[in-house]
């Protein structure tokens, strides 16, 4: 399963009650569309840290990294640990 699909599945499962929606493309703004709220963001960061073995302190806390699936995948790929794994 590619990374985009993994992240998409997680978002569907955790934030959309398991109901997939066609709008959820890789560039769909998760924040502006209210899919991920503030505590949701904390949960998302926690999930990424655990699943991809990225220390929380190594996750760049920049809004641009979390807006959509595309950007989330990009920073995971840039992470030294995830990239080597």
């Amino acid at each position, binding site marked *: 399963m590619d990374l985009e699909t993994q992240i998409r599945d997680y978002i569907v499962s955790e934030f959309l009650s398991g109901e997939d929606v066609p709008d959820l493309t890789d560039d769909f703004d998760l*924040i502006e569309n209210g899919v991920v*709220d*503030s505590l*949701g963001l904390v*949960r998302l960061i926690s999930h990424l840290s655990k699943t991809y073995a990225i220390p929380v302190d190594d996750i760049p806390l920049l*809004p641009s990294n979390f*807006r959509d699936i595309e950007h989330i995948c990009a920073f995971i790929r840039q992470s030294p640990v995830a990239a080597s794994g």
Partner: protein
Amino acid sequence: MTATTDTTTDTFDTVAAWAEDLNRDNATLDDRGEFPWEKWKTIQRSGILAVPFERRYGGEGRSLTETMRALEGLGYTSRDAGLNFSTSTQIVSVGLVLQAFGNEELTTTYLPKIISGELITAHAITEPTNGSDATGITTTARRDGDDYVLDGEKMFITNAPIADLLLLYVRTGPPGPFGLSCFLVERDTPGLRIGEPLDKMGLRTSPLGAVTLDGVRVPASRRVGQEGAGFLILDHIMKREILLSFSITLGEMTHRLERCVRQARTRTQFGQPIGAYQAVSHKIADMKIAVETARKWLYDTGAKVEAGEDASIDVAATKTVVSEANLRTALDAVQIFGGSGFLSATGVEADVRNAVGGTIYSGTNEVQRNRIASLLGLGSPAGEGVRRG
């Protein structure tokens, strides 16, 4: 005496040599509700403000858990809980945020003076209509050319009446996790007004006040972190605020336990030490359990945060466990000390007043429980950003 620079020693004893200075006139200062400026000089001299900061800024380069241990030592040594609280606020509110997120100009300009205690700091999150719900912040920063213009009001800000430097959490975007940003502002910036210290129940030597922003113009270079990163910065720093300020609480609880054991051994009633009665000895046994439970939660969670592991639930649980244990054991101590525990002069009753604050600041315990529930996927009507005002 100067601060230690030996990084192999246990930081618990960082302030131990200054116990006499730190405990002078506690009852009088608490009664007056005054910030103890002479004791602040002692805090500066002790070197405790430098413990977690990088050496290039004048710090000691110690880890999070080593810093927790230093603050536990402060709580054990100093009976001035307000001063202790202002000290942890000084370390956390601006210094650790700048070290993690500040640009080169801000860190080199301000960190050395924060670490020395020359500049006193505060962070302003709470507002008159927004307490534990940090995402509801209404104070705004509007972009205007190379500047931002800040307007709004902050309330219950620890250290504000004495602060030289404030980190303001304000709204720069629509509601949601990326709607907040942080700005570093000096006290004398035009349009910024700081209110008089507010009289309060406990932590009376730690000044608390309001901050009003009326067209405060700050250069964009004073923004800390990316625009919209305020909530993420808040989440990062609140973990450390809770761990550090409640490590102080652990030290205070440990000291209280030892006091109660001495009292139970030496105070006699009906021909024997009161500790011989199970009504008293079980209270003290429960205190010991509370102290060691608090210790395990604090240092296990500190180790997780230090290792970069997810600790969101652990931090919320730690805050709740330690603050409630502190209040419960403070009340038990009054009972064990009896009539003298009810007197202000013994300092036992002050522990109760101070402990109440711990269930409120850094996000109320109700919000911490909401947060845990939400992180378990149970949903929560409130309890997003959690922090001290």
